[in-house]
């Protein structure tokens, strides 16, 4: 199977999983309007993967983040799983779209990308598990400090990226 097709399969499966988790969560809790909303956006994300609108991928991911944010009120694990799966879907779909204009791109590139994404998923999963398993009470000042630190790190990374 060509590597590009694998990418598309991974992307669509990941979109289905990310939205499926939310649908299942809300469905089991009897929150049908939320479940329907997640299902509709899931179908739209998958339908978009057959179209040409690349911006739709990022929009779908943003919507998924918002839905997962709401889902944390019911189950944080499901919300976290949904975001992780959504990140995989977003990345693989954008990569598959990037490879589309090229005739027969080498499989090595695709596998290298999937390996790195796998490493990110493992790292995020491990950190997320730790974060959700051990609850530490932090004061507002600490949280503000963490946010400031993140902002600083992000701006430094952005500078690096722009240079």
């Amino acid at each position: 199977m060509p590597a590009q097709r694998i990418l598309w399969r991974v992307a669509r499966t990941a979109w289905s999983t990310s939205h499926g988790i939310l649908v299942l969560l809300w469905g089991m809790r009897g929150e049908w309007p939320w479940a329907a909303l997640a299902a509709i956006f899931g179908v739209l994300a998958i339908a978009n993967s057959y179209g040409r609108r690349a911006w739709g991928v990022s929009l779908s991911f943003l919507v998924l983040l918002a839905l997962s944010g709401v889902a944390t009120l019911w189950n944080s694990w499901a919300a976290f799983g949904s975001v992780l799966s959504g990140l995989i879907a977003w990345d693989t779909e954008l990569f598959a779209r990037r490879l589309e204009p090229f005739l027969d791109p080498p499989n090595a590139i695709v596998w290298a990308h999937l390996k790195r994404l796998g490493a990110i998923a493992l790292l995020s999963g491990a950190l997320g598990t730790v974060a959700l398993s051990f609850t530490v009470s932090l004061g507002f000042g600490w949280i503000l400090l963490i946010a400031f630190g993140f902002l600083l790190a992000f701006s430094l990374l952005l500078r690096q990226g722009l240079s």
Partner: protein
Amino acid sequence: MLGPRRWAFLGSAAFLLILIGEILRQGELLVLALPLVCYLAVGFYFALPDRIELKAQRSLSEQRVLSEEPVTVRVELENMGAKLEVVEFADSVPSLLKVRHQHSTKIDTIPAGGKISLEYAVAGMRGLARWKDLSVTVTDTLGLFVKRMELPCEGEVLIVPTFERLDEILMRPRRTRIFSGQVKARLGGTGIEFFGVREYYPGDERRYINWKATARKDRLIVNEFEQERVADVIILLDARERSDVAIEGVSLFEHSVRAALSLAHYFTAQGNRVGLLIYGRYLDWTWPGFGRWQREKLLRAIASAEKGDKAVFEDLENLPTRLLLAGSQLVFVGPILDSDVKTIIDLRLRYEVLCIVPNPILFESASLARTPEVELALRLEHLRRRGFLTQLRRAGIRIVDWDVTKPLASVVRGELGRTAWRAALVRRGVL
């Protein structure tokens, strides 16, 4: 979405989650930002090397081809630095070429000191196709860092349209050069064709003695032959947009170009000193010269000729006659307009003029529906055109009215060959 945009998107989303989590004092939202932060952190860890050293080299299977003949282009990219995870390179194919086989873009990984290559085939109709730079985009696997560069990677291929080989054009320019060639010089001397008789001078070869004339005159008379020398020939290619006719993407100008190529090839092969002026978009002047090198220059210039609609070149009035060598043979190639007649007749005062005129009416009429109105219009146009061509012929200008559906070689042979020359002399009562 690549590079900073990707950063901004993921970073903003993570920051928003953290901010909302803090505002609502809900730690789970902070956890949701973790995958995004991990993504950015891993991306940063595997960032691009500080220095990217790439070298591009291009090779073409042919330097000169005929129309629609494929040329294989091979571009090799050498990495002289650290390993590059994703390298996209796109070769900008000149507009006059079309990619026939494979793609002019490629994506791959280049190990340190490694090479990758791109190969594709192109073909085109006519012109000089030049490649300049190769666009290269280097990114990390996740696409968070991007570096775009243009690597110098030049190459060129000349696409010459197929043209006919002409076999005979008799011309009588007013002036010839001193080197022997195939143009009658209007001077007695050594040659092939009989020119006249004169008195014998010591040193004349005995085989040239005309015994009958000697017997009549009672002194030695020798035959003289017409000297054959090379001449100066200037080809004027009419590249004015207003004189062109284009139907369904096929242009009469292309026929003029083919005719000019045939003429340039013929005249240089005959050893003449040939120059070229392309009159239209701008004045594209090729100085007269001899030999194969000159023929190559002419072929390049003609094959790259483009039409133009500059107001200053609308009429032939601005033809730079000071560039044209006095007494040379001018060969005008293109459909003549009414407004050009006076200028061409004026040129006849200083030069021998020959016009190869692709017939625009026959060219256009081939695609017209034959209604009575069209037939009438065509007849009127033919008459009008015949009128000014006759006017030119009366001024001593030789005209080849060329129906482009017929081969130029046979038309030229019929109009400018030896037989036509004799027929003209007979008509004038010379022979």
